């Protein structure tokens, strides 16, 4: 839970109850499972899906 408290503090989440902190902990665990699935082998040429353009469309 102390990592969760540190995360809450870092994110400015100063008004969380113990119940809220437990939720934040569970949400973090869920998100970590998704993060662990991110590919680790992108090359520099792998562009993001949305690329800013200065003129015309922003996409």
């Amino acid at each position: 839970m102390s990592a969760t408290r540190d995360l809450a503090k870092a994110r400015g989440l100063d008004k969380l109850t113990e119940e809220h902190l437990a939720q934040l902990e569970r949400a973090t665990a869920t998100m970590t499972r998704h993060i662990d699935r991110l590919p680790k082998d992108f090359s520099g040429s792998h562009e993001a899906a949305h690329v800013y353009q200065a003129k015309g469309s922003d996409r």
Partner: protein
Amino acid sequence: MSELAFLTIAEAGAQIRAKKLSPVEYTKALIAQIERHEPSFNAFIKFTPDIALKEAQAAEAQIAAGRWRGPFHGIPYGLKDIVDVAGLPTTAHSKVLIDSLARADAPVAAKLRDAGGVLLGKLSTHEFAVGGPSFDLPWPPARNPWNRDHFPGGSSSGSGAGLAAGFFPAAIGTDTGGSIRNPASMCGIAGMKATYGRVSRRGVFPLSFSLDHVGPMTRTVRDNALMLQVIAGHDPEDPGSAAVGVPDYTADIDRGVKGMRIGVIRHFYTKDVEGDPDQVKALDDAVALLAKQGATVTEITLPPLLDYTACGQIILAAESYAIHERWLRERPQDYGARARERLFGGAALSAVHYLQAVRWRQVLKQQTLAAFRDIDVAITASSMDPACRIDDNEKLAANYWRSGRMPFNVTGQPGLVIPAGFSKGLPLSLQIVGQPFGEVACYRVGQAYEAATEWTKKHPALN
């Protein structure tokens, strides 16, 4: 039960045009249906019978004067309560916005109004389209008309429940990770998440900018096409809006599937996730039926379902946290527990996580479109199970991840969900996925299947 309660848009619209059905009498019949059954199903946040009757009277007068506007003239509908209507609250089913008041119509609401539609009210949703079903909010959650002890799906829960209960023939929902298609599956109705950018998102409270879709929910495929016809189109003030022409969505709808190429993404519901046996059988039977009708069917392989889930959920978490960050800091207690926990996920992410997911999204999109290269549409699961009990938190949590919907929010392709049978009295469904802007093909396949099976003619008893 009123015989008018389960008219389709096509049926009612034709009768209204021929002046055989009065928009006022039709609206009054639906108001009576709502007043009788709404306490059981909680489809509405704000029921607006006064507005409805006024608009119905205006529609009747216009049609009598020869000023018929089209198939939606005089048709009652509901709007998910994240869609702005000038002068009405947009609560997002949340205490956070309980005192809000919209100053202008969202374009989707304006288009339905301009088409002569009759607004019955604002509909229940999961809180901010992300957290539900929730019993700790100012309004109760919607319930499933097929069995009110069961979940109606979400987040467009009131839209799905109201359609199934015969409250209206048309509703607007939104879909960020499946929220039109989930209630379509659970409530046995038709829901279309069209191509990203097909329908304006302006004036609709966002959950995730690059994943949000606004779309039609109806009881039949033809109705869905008629409704998309009204709401589709470019909005230059929506940065995600597509400047792509709008075809006639009903032009090919009765052509049948002979000669069409259908891909089946079977691994989504048999290997990546093991679907409920009744749901898997329904999908296999549907594919066999379409093959018998003359479609060429092949099994296709996409990246693993869980890859799309991870990619989509990271993007959704980051974008939604950006929207809710201030309120989560200032008033976390004003959220329901489910929405708060789901929104907290974004706090765990770094900017690099988000960017990596967005790079991954491009790869997944390319791989998906490559798999779609030689087909017209694909068929796969929407939900893997029929609706669980609304109070079964364990099943609700487990089933949240058991779906074939998120891939097509990640890629932006259209996904149409329609009924595909029943399991122990609860609806089963299938999902038809098209090429980008390929809604016409989705409707053509959906209509062929619907005409052959007639699932959409069954309605709940509403006891």
